[in-house]
């Protein structure tokens, strides 16, 4: 076991975002009258910026502490000016922490795209299923890899050890993290969400999205995120992380969706994914 504890993640102030995304924001702040709209549009597919915006929106200063579960609610509450200032505070994700270091162990562009597509499909699935909280579903899909990002960026050596363990022992990364670190990236996300004052609903969804079970709180939204994640991977946007996967047919059964029904929804869901991909200005 490595002496890394979950408590250390409570001290993190922000997750870093991709340099390309930060650059997009900086360009947008110099743009003309449409700048505010562009910023909100840009951050809606960025997990790090979404986490930061949610963190601020859930502080007591804006009047709804621990009650804002979606990026859309947060954007409405904070307004473009405050969001712009939040995005300007977000650190840049450096794949090389110094001139001599090895690159960070993951392909973050791939994770960003995967997260954005998962968000779009989650939201689409929610709407098609008649779920009222499609915005929460979207947000959960977007930030479901927050723990992986935090762990791999801020503690790359420990994360690499878990990756090695998974590789050598042919187990999922989730399992390897538990063996090597004593906790998983999902718990990391849960801990950060708790420390950042997110509503319990969000962490309940993220904590069980690797294995949603009926009767757990918010199992349905967790199931939607898990299915969206699986569809995103199947349609060419995997996260690149070797994680435990749940068979799609099990997820469909859990959510009460027939294979035929899923087939009918596919083209519409792909449109959501395509829209997300076009909106994300990631090269």
């Amino acid at each position, binding site marked *: 076991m490595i002496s890394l504890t979950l408590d250390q993640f409570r001290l993190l102030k922000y997750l870093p975002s991709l340099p390309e995304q930060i650059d997009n924001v900086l360009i947008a702040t110099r743009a003309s009258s449409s700048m505010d709209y562009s910023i909100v549009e840009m951050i809606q597919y960025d997990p790090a910026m979404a986490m930061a915006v949610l963190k*601020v929106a859930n*502080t*007591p200063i*804006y009047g709804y502490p621990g009650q804002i579960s979606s990026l859309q609610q947060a954007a409405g509450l904070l307004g473009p000016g*405050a969001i712009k*200032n939040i995005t*300007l505070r977000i650190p840049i994700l450096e794949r090389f922490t110094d*001139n*001599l270091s090895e690159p960070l162990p993951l392909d973050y562009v791939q994770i960003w795209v995967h997260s954005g597509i998962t968000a779009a499909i989650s939201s689409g699935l929610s709407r098609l299923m008649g779920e009222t909280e499609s915005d929460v579903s979207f947000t959960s899909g977007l930030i479901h890899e927050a723990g992986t990002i935090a762990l791999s960026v801020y503690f790359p050596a420990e994360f690499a050890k878990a990756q090695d363990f998974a590789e050598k022992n042919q187990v999922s990364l989730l399992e390897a993290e538990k063996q090597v670190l004593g906790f998983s990236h999902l718990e990391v996300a849960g801990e950060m969400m708790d420390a950042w004052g997110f509503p319990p609903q969000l962490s309940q969804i993220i904590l069980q999205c690797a294995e949603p079970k009926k009767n757990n709180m918010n199992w349905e939204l967790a199931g939607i995120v898990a299915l969206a994640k699986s569809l995103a991977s199947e349609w060419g946007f995997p996260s690149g992380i070797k994680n435990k996967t749940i068979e799609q047919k099990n997820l469909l059964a859990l959510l009460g969706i027939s294979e035929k029904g899923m087939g009918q929804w596919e083209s519409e869901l792909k449109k959501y994914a395509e829209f997300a991909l076009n909106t994300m200005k990631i090269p």
Partner: protein
Amino acid sequence: MNPLENEKLRLQESETVRNLLKRQNTLLGNSLENLDHLIYLQKSINLLSMQEICRVMVEKLPFILSVRYFTFFLFDKNRRRLSLASHNHPDLEDGHSLYQNDSLIMKEAMNSGRYIFEQDFSASRYFLGRKNLLFSCRFFVSIPLMIENEIIGVLNLNDNQKGFYNVGDLDFALNVSEFVALSISNAMLYERAEKLSVTDGLTGLDNHQQMQTLLKNEVVRCGRYNSPLSVIIMDIDHFKQVNDTYGHQKGDEILLEFSAIMKKFCRSNDVAARYGGEEFFLVLPETQIEGALHIAERIREEMASHKFQSKGKGFNVTVSCGIAEFDSNYMQDTTDLIKVSDLALYKAKNEGRNRTIQGTADDLLNA
């Protein structure tokens, strides 16, 4: 310098610059965050109700100032007392107040007009040896809130998660306290102006306009719930003569004394007003005419028995009272009710003053 050394130097320098930029960026980020907080606090605290400002302080101040506990005391310079207006201490009772000299630290902060910042209050002279089990760390900040050199209150800050309070935190707290002071001062001025607009300047009773508004509301309520409503109109007998004999200052003193007597016999829902000049009015909700008569007589007797003094000589002043009860069968509105009571007062004057006369709806027909 050979190419290898050159390359090494280039890498070193780029790393140094990168690290510096990161540090600069963090500092700028923190400033931007503080600025956002300040702007939002200003937006949410820019209120005209003192009560609302205090509620916002409890909700937002601990987070903005990165502290666990705060107390905010309002300072009454006439009474030299500090009253707890807003706080989030579990051990303190709302409405707590203390004499300025009872808190050495707040007294010094107010007298010097400067903040007092102690990293360890138990080692400071203010709280030497004292402990508070509520606090996990021991800093203490006391900031006087001032508007144009006038102290309006004191903000005290205690305890936080990180275990210390640094100069940056303090600097920010001082900026925030200025916003808070401005909002509180605005609200106090507004509340004062609002009170003055409905109050008689000399007696502190409701003024004529306010009495008319409240009476109108009571008449509507009385019609809706079929509840009794009575009024008393009172006039100080021979007031002009008193003014001419003893002077206008004495006249004011009589008006003040009579107001005090009226307040003494008023219940919490009654409305005591100065109707104009030496005329006064009492609105008595949920009161039948017998009750009004009883109250009018007590006021009249108390006034008649009060001995006023002028140049060593004692003299008495009496009042005449007219009373009426609202009768929805014969009266349409406040005008009718006032008219009945006024006619009764006229009778009291005509019948020799220093008495109470009961008016009836029939008087309206004869008027």
